[in-house]
């Protein structure tokens, strides 16, 4: 059962109306069955989930002129739904199937397919998460997101078990996503659907991982190459982002490389390090300017037409543990430095006019190296 209580404004002065967006209610039911079977070298896992989602009253839903884009000006009427009345419901079959084939003791292959539906949407268009980010249930105008994924992988262990390697590829498609319109105004908006556009997308990638699991030196290495694209599919061409062509999603980072290493110096002390390198995420950048009524304005590129610079950092830590073998309590102290070489990684890039010259700035959430001390325990 979901309850969304977006906004309430009460008790203000005469001339301003109280605002109550009313609580949105949703119910999700999902029975699931699974079946597992092992043959000699082949194992299979199959599952079937049926999910049902209903959006309930009391609530008011606007209906729009079907011949025009949805705006507050094209609302034809507002229908009130009674308490418990179903506004819109969706049902979906979500199958999943995976095979694992053990070629021998050291080599295996796997294949998987699954389909998932997501009935809750985060509607936000800021760089950082905010207390007034909006969560919206699927309803009359926002159908559930459908994701279909196929994946295949190969895993290899060395004979002594010290090293493990894996290579996995995937391809995903997304349907019924939402993207915000140019200049979308989401705050205090009773008709959020007027600011959103239907979208679809796809994503594919290849992940390589290597692990060293024993010896004084342990660690792992991961590299992922991925592509994530979106496309808005409004039936009104002039509304579509980037003229309805595919563009990189906000989270598209084609290259991610991570390296973790731990070295045991002696019985009490170990040293660890973590290095990460990630391609910069997409951004929308100025590609022109003009002056109008004495003020300068920016013309921006296609949405997500450029990328901020790549990011990388290294963390180093020393860990001290002195544990008595017959005690349940096991604790360790770690002393380290986060972002040890003080790299100013770009979190956001933005442009502003200063003395009528367009200046571009890079913002880093953490501007330098940060020391840390932690105590970890388990019992």
């Amino acid at each position, binding site marked *: 059962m979901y309850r969304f209580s977006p906004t309430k404004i009460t008790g203000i002065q005469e001339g301003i109306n109280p605002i109550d967006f009313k609580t949105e209610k949703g119910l999700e039911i999902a029975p699931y069955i699974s079946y597992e079977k092992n043959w000699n070298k082949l194992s299979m896992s199959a599952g079937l989930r049926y999910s049902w989602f209903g959006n309930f009253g009391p609530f008011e839903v606007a209906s729009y002129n079907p011949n025009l884009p949805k705006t507050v000006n094209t609302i034809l009427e507002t229908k009130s739904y009674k308490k418990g009345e179903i506004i819109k419901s969706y049902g979906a079959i979500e199958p999943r199937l995976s095979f694992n084939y053990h070629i021998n003791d050291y080599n295996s292959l796997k294949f998987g397919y699954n389909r998932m539906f997501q009935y809750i949407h985060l509607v936000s268009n800021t760089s950082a998460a905010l207390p007034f980010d909006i969560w919206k249930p699927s309803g009359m105008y926002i159908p559930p997101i459908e994701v279909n994924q196929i994946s295949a992988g190969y895993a290899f262990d060395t004979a002594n078990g010290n090293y493990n390697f894996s290579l996995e590829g995937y391809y995903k498609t997304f349907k019924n996503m939402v993207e915000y319109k140019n200049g979308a105004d989401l705050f205090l908006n009773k008709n959020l659907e007027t600011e959103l556009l239907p979208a679809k997308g796809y994503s594919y990638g290849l992940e390589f991982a290597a692990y060293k699991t024993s010896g004084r030196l342990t660690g792992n290495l991961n590299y992922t190459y991925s592509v994530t694209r979106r496309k808005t599919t409004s039936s009104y061409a002039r509304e579509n982002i980037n003229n309805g062509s595919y563009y990189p999603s906000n989270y598209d980072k084609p290259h991610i490389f991570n390296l973790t290493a731990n070295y045991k110096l002696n019985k009490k002390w170990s040293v660890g390090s973590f290095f990460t390198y990630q391609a910069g995420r997409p951004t929308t950048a100025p590609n022109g*300017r003009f002056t109008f009524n004495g003020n300068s*304005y920016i013309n*921006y590129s296609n949405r997500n037409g450029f990328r901020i610079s790549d990011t990388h950092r290294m963390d180093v830590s020393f860990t001290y543990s002195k544990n008595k073998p017959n005690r349940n309590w096991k604790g360790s102290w770690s002393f380290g430095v986060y972002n040890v070489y003080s790299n*100013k990684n770009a979190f956001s890039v933005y442009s502003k006019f200063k003395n009528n010259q367009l200046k571009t700035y890079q913002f880093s959430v953490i501007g330098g190296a940060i020391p840390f001390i932690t105590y970890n325990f388990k019992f």
Partner: protein
Amino acid sequence: MKRIYKIITLLLCVFILQSCVKEIKLVSNYESSIFIYGNITNEIDYVNVIVLQTTPVTDASLKHIIDAKISLYTEHNNVPTLITNNFTVTSEKNYKSSEKISTVIGNHYWIEIELQDGTTFKSMKEKLLPPVALSGLTYEDATLEAHFEDPENSANFYHLEVASIDNIDNSFLKSFQIESDILYNGNKNAFIESESFFGNAIVVKLSNINFETYRFLLNLSKQNEDNIDDEDNESGNPGQLFASPPVNLIGNIQNAITNEKALGNFGVISKSLPLSLTN
């Protein structure tokens, strides 16, 4: 021990706060675009249209396009009529209709702009809405309130124009504010607050505007707020973390062939009679 805590805290603050914002070189390519802006109102007046070409981000010059053909149309009962295509280029390099245009409440109006290379832009047909009269002005605690009765059963969008006049040094400043009636839909005592004026007399007009024009003017004022490098602007929003994504100034104008939206807007605006207030 207390001294050690203080030193550690100080060191942490220095590490975390050291120069989080730095200027970088902009990496993007210049793409030429056309910006078109104009209005028609319920007042008998000339219609002015501006046509500009964007310049590279490093070039602050104005690039007017002065060889376009402008046509102004109206539509009543689904019958379109050309009002005029007789526009002259003024000394400010704007297009001005050769005669004053009178309009009819309830009719639709739009313009077509044909560039020398044949590219044609067209604004969406917008309806001339009935004007919403100002019922009074009050001034208290350095805040002006413009009062009016918001019509019921429709979403309304307003452009409040405040002209400040200083009779002593004869200076004059116009400011505007964009509002939707979300907070006062149908309220008989609706008001819009304004603090951006000076001098000893003000003249206020309230314009009833269409949604596309509202959205365009809102984005125009948002770019104005967001794009000026003012140290004070940074407080509470470091690195524009909480800012919404960049907004292009596209309104109700689109390429007539490709249907792609173009920069700019042609507003069909219904102005109230002015009210004034003096000190």
